[in-house]
Structures are given as structure tokens and as C-alpha cells.
């Protein structure tokens, strides 16, 4: 890689990091206000997550006496860094230069990278030296194992379909962004894709640790679970990693299921950068819609599941549905 490419990559990384942080915190704020309005409350101002962040950064960072200091302090950094790293591989709105590391990464790499923030939280929880954190860490590990099944079924369905159509690099996200999967399947496959979309919408709250799948952090049961001993700067870093992960997971969903751009429908050719700006805005709108239906609406409509019920729902109900979806996509190819 020559010097300019390297410089561009570094600049792109910094840009993506800032975007992930700002957009993540903004969307968290919008989620909170919308949830409040739906519960007939006024809610906080939209910039509340920024206020919370600035408050956390000035608070004392307490490391418990029987914690493992290097792991306790390193886990939040690892979570944030890995969440930002995933952002570098996800295509966003066909903007030039994105994804920053696009050609080097694919879906399988993203699936692996998605595990790292969760594992960092588990490590942080186990390093906290508190029984509540230990219970929370155990539950987080179980939840991660549980939602991998529907997630894997979806990834396999996409890759299989593209490979079957003899598209080069079936696992590559750029390929997926260029060829919307809905255009490649017939009615049977359409049903299958709908099932996969439904299961993925419910995998998102599990990934982000939101109700009904927030057993690892259940506030009323284990007083905050994994994060119970975290405070100050460490807690701020975990909150940021969660905000960035929100952008990551919703962008992934949009890239897989809704890769269309505004310019595909409406020709915008008057000014050079208006097209890109419009595409970017459309992309943020798509993120918001996915966030609303998978996180906001779900988290205020139902109660929290027990950890055994989390596994039951992810394996028996959503796992079965996603496998049926996968089979329908496969059957579709042979029927046509």
C-alpha cells in the first residue's frame, strides 16, 4: 500500500470512528425520546446521551479491590475498538471510499468480529469480582451462543444464493450491496427472505442487550449484571461501544436486506455532492427505521425473558424459523 492509500485509510478510519460515535449517540437519544413519547412521557432532550457521556467522563473510575485491573480496564477499550473496526467493513449508501477496508473483509469476518465486543463485556464482567457480574457474564455468553443460530442461517442463505447465481465473492458485502437479494428470488424465496428478515429483526435486540433479551444486564434482577462494577470512564467506554454497535448492527441489516440508494429511484444530477448527501441521508433514514422496529418498539412492548427462555426463543422459535427461511430460499432456486 503506498503512502496516499495508507493516509486515506487512516483518515477514513478516524472519520468512521467519529461517525459511529456521533451517529450512535444521536440514534440512542432518538430511541429514548421516541420510547418516552410512546409511553406518554416527555422524555429527555435528544442530546441526552452526550450529556450522560460528559457526566460519566468526569466521574471517578472505581476499580474494585478484588477485580483483575488490567482486564477490568482493558475490556471497555477492546469493546469500543472492535465495534469501530467492524464499521470499517460495512458498505454504507454507495458513498465513494466506503467501506474503508472494503475489499479485505467479508461477511464471515464480520460475524467473527461481532463476537468481540460481547466477549469483551464478558471478560470485563468476569474480571469485576462481583457475584452479580459473574451471573451477568454467564448469561451474556449464553445469549451470544443463542443468537448465533439465526444469524448464521441468514448469512448462509445470502451466501448460498449468491454462490448459486455464480456471483463472484458471494460473501463480500460490496457484492451484496450491489445486488439486492430480493431481486434474485421468486415468490417462494421471497417468503423465505421475509422469515429471515423477521428473525434478524429479533436478533438485533439480543446483540445490543435490549429488552426482551437483556438478561445479562437485567437491572431489577442482578443490579446491572455485567456492568455492575463499572463507573466513570470505563462505563463511558462501554456505553460508547454499545452506541457504535447499534450503528454496526443496523447498518449490517440495511446492507443485507435494504441496500437500495435514493439515486436508484430518483435521478439527482444537478450538483456534484448532492447525490452523495442525499444517499447518506437516505441511509440514515433506513437505519432509523430498522432501529425503530427492532429496538425501540420491541423494548417497550414486552417484558424481559429469563435466560432459559432467551435460549428457547432463539433456538426453538427463531432458529426454526430461520432454518425454514433458508430452506425456502434453497427450494426457490430449484423451483424456478
Amino acid at each position, binding site marked *: 500500500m503506498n503512502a496516499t492509500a495508507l493516509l486515506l485509510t487512516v483518515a477514513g478510519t478516524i472519520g468512521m470512528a467519529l461517525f459511529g460515535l456521533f451517529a450512535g449517540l444521536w440514534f440512542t437519544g432518538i430511541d429514548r425520546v*421516541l420510547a*418516552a*413519547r*410512546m*409511553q*406518554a*412521557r*416527555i*422524555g*429527555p*432532550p435528544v442530546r441526552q446521551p452526550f450529556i450522560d457521556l460528559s457526566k460519566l467522563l468526569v466521574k471517578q473510575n472505581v476499580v474494585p479491590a478484588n477485580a483483575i485491573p488490567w482486564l477490568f480496564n482493558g475490556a471497555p477499550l477492546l469493546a469500543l475498538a472492535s465495534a469501530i473496526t467492524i464499521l470499517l467493513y460495512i458498505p454504507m449508501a454507495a458513498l465513494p471510499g466506503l467501506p474503508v477496508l472494503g475489499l479485505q473483509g467479508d461477511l464471515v469476518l464480520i460475524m467473527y468480529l461481532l463476537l468481540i465486543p460481547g466477549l469483551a463485556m464478558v471478560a470485563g464482567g468476569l474480571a469485576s469480582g462481583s457475584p452479580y457480574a459473574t451471573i451477568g457474564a454467564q448469561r451474556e455468553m449464553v445469549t451470544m451462543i443463542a443468537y448465533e443460530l439465526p444469524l448464521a442461517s441468514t448469512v448462509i442463505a445470502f451466501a448460498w444464493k449468491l454462490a448459486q447465481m455464480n456471483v463472484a465473492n458471494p460473501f463480500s458485502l460490496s457484492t451484496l450491496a450491489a445486488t439486492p437479494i430480493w431481486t434474485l428470488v421468486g415468490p417462494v424465496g421471497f417468503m423465505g427472505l421475509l422469515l429471515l428478515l423477521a428473525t434478524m429483526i429479533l436478533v438485533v435486540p439480543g446483540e445490543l442487550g435490549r429488552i426482551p433479551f437483556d438478561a445479562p444486564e437485567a437491572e431489577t434482577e442482578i443490579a446491572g449484571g455485567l456492568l455492575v462494577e463499572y463507573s466513570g470512564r470505563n462505563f463511558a467506554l462501554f456505553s460508547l461501544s454499545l452506541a457504535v454497535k447499534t450503528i454496526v448492527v443496523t447498518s449490517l441489516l440495511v446492507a443485507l436486506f435494504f441496500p437500495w440508494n435514493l439515486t436508484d429511484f430518483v435521478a439527482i444530477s444537478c450538483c456534484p455532492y448532492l447525490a452523495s448527501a442525499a444517499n447518506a441521508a437516505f441511509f440514515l433514514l433506513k437505519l432509523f427505521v430498522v432501529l425503530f422496529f427492532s429496538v425501540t*418498539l420491541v423494548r*417497550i*412492548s*414486552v417484558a424481559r425473558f429469563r435466560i432459559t427462555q432467551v435460549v428457547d426463543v432463539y433456538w426453538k422459535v427463531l432458529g426454526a424459523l430461520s432454518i425454514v427461511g433458508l430452506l425456502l430460499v434453497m427450494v426457490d432456486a430449484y423451483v424456478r
Partner: protein
Amino acid sequence: MPFPMVPELLGSLFKKPNTNPFPAPQLPPTVTGLLEQVGQGKAQLNPPVAVPPKLRGKMTYNRETCIGCKLCLKVCPAHAIDFIEGAKKIRIFVSQCIQCGQCTEICPKNCLALSDEFLNANHDRYADALIVD
């Protein structure tokens, strides 16, 4: 209906929130700044929810008619009434008063009554606003 909360939630999105935004909808940058602005007439505080008549609020005391019989002290559950020996009058500590109104019932001269003032918060227990005499 498996998720009965959902229609309720979506409906609330288009209605006014149930919260009465007293004194302001969001926390201002500084509370003292907001109060200063209100004093200068540049900002307004939202009023609280209307209180019913006969709300049991802050005590009022008619010093002239009081005869110093000390019956109110006998019956105050919170020991919030202080007797002033020389003048044979009383003093009520609002921070201690539980606003039960028992003293208003036993007073033979009807010089005690409960008003409907309820915004009595103060930093100082013994501020002038919190001593009725």
C-alpha cells in the same frame, strides 16, 4: 391479542404526553439562571396541576385571637408547635408540621387554619418562610 401493549404505545405517539411539565419540560442549563429569567419576565414557568379546594397545605395563624391555651401543643403529633412563654403565643415550624390539621380542630378560638400553599421547599429548615407565627 398476544402483545396488547403495542396499539396503546403507537396511539400515544400521536397524543400529548401525560406529564405536566411543571416547572419546565426539560432541565435548564442552570436552575438559578432560569429563575432569574423568570424574575426578569423573559421566561415562564409552567403552572402545577390545579389543587382541589380544602387541600391540606401550609399552616396559617391568627396571632391576635390566640389566647395561649396550649391545647394545640397537646394534640400535635409531630411536636411542630413551640410555645413562646412571655407573649403566650405560639410558633409553628412548617418543616416539622405534618399538615394533619388536628390543631385547627381543637383550637377554641379558631385562629389556626390550613391554607392550600404546597410549594414550601427550602434549603433552610428555619427560614422565615418556614416558620409561621
